[in-house]
């Protein structure tokens, strides 16, 4: 059998391993190792296994991931997320569907200091869902909106997926982060418009909240000060080239601790729990990257990646049509597996194709993140949906998935706008020179 055939068989075996519930990270490492041994020698396979684990676990660029996750965990433990929600609620809570809109605004704000969609959804779900229940919001709208708005966590910087994409494709993480700002704002607006549309058609879905005075509104603005300080101090420092991504993450984590202590919100127990939680998430992400790296080495010796890139390049279709197919592949793949795993697994094959077709790598990074956002809310493997199910145990999964649908349409519209007007994602990165 040719190496390319072995590579194709390897992909098939990997999919079977996923379906039979093997942890994704370990499945990629196992199949990658076996394929590498088959195509080379057992000694070479053993060496790839142990050295890749050693190299990835000790990778300095990857250390930005645990630090940004740590920053989000400490921000939650410091009560920053509740204050954000209170501010958004005070400003727009009295509108029809206002609590849901406030949740979306608060998710956008929290996304600016947290790089994970599940963390954003879980954090805001705990705060917003009981409030919406109190005001008789429909479960469909309440749960669907939090799950969808949580996905903003990976588009608005910082973002773990942008960090991984940047490392794997050798793109500037600062540029990727800033590229996510305008699409993040656009998507937040589209989500808010979606809520307005739903509540216009069915006013009972999102009744008005309590009225607040202008004095209360302005007084509530103190609730966003902490977020602005953290965002400007970390992501701002990264944008102007003052910090590396790892340094920005560390400053953010330390800043969140200082804010939590200054506001007397962060307890010793909260600090320890937040540290453990961040470590577990970071461990899961880095294991996925390590597994995908081992599988990627198998793909490289099988020469399948090069053959696939050459084949796609030779197709008699315009580049945009091929990009459309790539987006559909990611969308369908994201329905069935974790978005991070899907991206690290497929990028070594897809990215060379994207480059050969002449697309901007930063723009493609934003597209990838948008499709990953769809992946975290679509059935059957919508991670955010399961997170929301965990937070609001009494809402059936079907109801949450039903509630997701209008927001999925908004995500598709956002992706279409970014494809049609790439400048939305490439304008801000063009302003920074590193």
């Amino acid at each position: 059998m040719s190496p390319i055939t072995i590579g194709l068989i390897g992909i098939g075996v990997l999919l079977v391993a996923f379906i039979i519930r093997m942890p994704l990270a370990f499945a990629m490492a196992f199949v990658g190792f076996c394929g590498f041994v088959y195509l080379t020698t057992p000694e070479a396979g053993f060496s790839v296994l142990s050295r890749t684990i050693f190299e990835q676990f000790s990778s300095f660029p990857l250390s930005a991931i645990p630090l940004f996750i740590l920053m989000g965990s400490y921000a939650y433990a410091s009560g920053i997320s509740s204050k954000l929600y209170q501010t958004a609620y005070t400003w727009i809570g009295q509108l029809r569907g206002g609590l849901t809109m406030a949740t979306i605004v608060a998710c956008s704000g929290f996304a600016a200091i947290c790089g994970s969609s599940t963390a954003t959804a879980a954090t805001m779900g705990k705060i917003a869902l009981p409030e919406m229940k109190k005001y008789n919001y429909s479960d469909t709208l309440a749960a669907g909106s939090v799950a969808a708005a949580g996905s903003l966590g990976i588009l608005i910087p910082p973002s773990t997926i942008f960090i991984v994409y940047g490392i794997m494709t050798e793109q500037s993480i600062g540029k990727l982060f800033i590229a996510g700002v305008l699409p993040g704002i656009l998507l937040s607006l589209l989500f808010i418009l979606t809520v307005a549309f739903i509540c216009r058609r069915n006013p009972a879905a999102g009744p008005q909240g309590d009225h607040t005075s202008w004095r209360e509104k302005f007084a509530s603005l103190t609730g966003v000060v902490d977020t602005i300080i953290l965002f400007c101090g970390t992501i701002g420092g990264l944008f102007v080239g003052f910090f590396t991504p790892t340094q920005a993450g560390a400053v953010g984590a330390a800043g969140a601790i200082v804010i939590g202590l200054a506001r007397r919100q962060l307890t010793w127990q909260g600090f320890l729990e937040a540290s453990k939680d961040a470590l577990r998430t970071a461990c899961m992400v880095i294991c996925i990257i390590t597994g995908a790296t081992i599988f990627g080495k198998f793909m490289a010796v099988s020469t399948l990646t090069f053959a696939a890139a050459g084949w796609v390049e030779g197709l008699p279709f315009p580049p945009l049509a091929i990009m459309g197919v790539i987006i559909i592949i990611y969308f369908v793949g994201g329905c069935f597996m974790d978005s991070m795993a899907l991206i690290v697994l497929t990028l070594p094959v897809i990215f060379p194709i994207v480059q050969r077709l002449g697309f901007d790598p930063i723009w493609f990074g934003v597209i990838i993140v948008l499709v990953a956002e769809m992946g975290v809310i679509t059935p059957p493997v919508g991670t955010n949906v399961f997170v929301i199910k965990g937070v609001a145990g009494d809402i059936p999964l079907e109801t949450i998935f039903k509630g997701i649908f209008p927001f999925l349409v908004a995500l598709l519209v956002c992706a279409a706008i970014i494809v049609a007007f790439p400048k939305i994602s490439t304008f801000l990165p063009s302003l920074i020179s590193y």
Partner: protein
Amino acid sequence: MRFGNFLNKFERLNRVVSGGLEWIGVAGLLVIAAVTCIDIVGSKVFLRPVPGSVDINGFSQIIAIAFAIAFTEIIGRHVRVEFFVSRLPWRAQGIINSFTSLLTLALFILIVWRSFVLGLSLQASGQVSSTARIPLYPFAYAISFAVIPVCLIFLVEFLRSVAQGIKR
């Protein structure tokens, strides 16, 4: 029944051990954050960065991640595709789980073994990190040691799944 009790006790012990190892991981993570912050202040304010901070971060990350794998698995945070197996009958689930846990057990036995062999070879060649001149071999041994509880987790899962698969 006695075998089931033995597995329960063994699982509880492994959970305690893995939970203890996770604290070592937490310490590693906090070292990364602390060293990076000290390095920023040192390099930006006093123009004196921490010597070898990149190496220290890399090695702390090995400790953080390797020692967290076991407990992360115990609490189910390593992502799996759940939608297919969960719809199958109880016994079929047991048969499939026994197969997947056996494969994962084999992978982690390989990792324990080969990381130890890597440690031996790094020790024999005397390799050190590029800036701080820290020996590399203890960290390869650390990976080998830290994933032993992961092997035990999948061993217990394998035995449980086999029992589930053969139970009428």
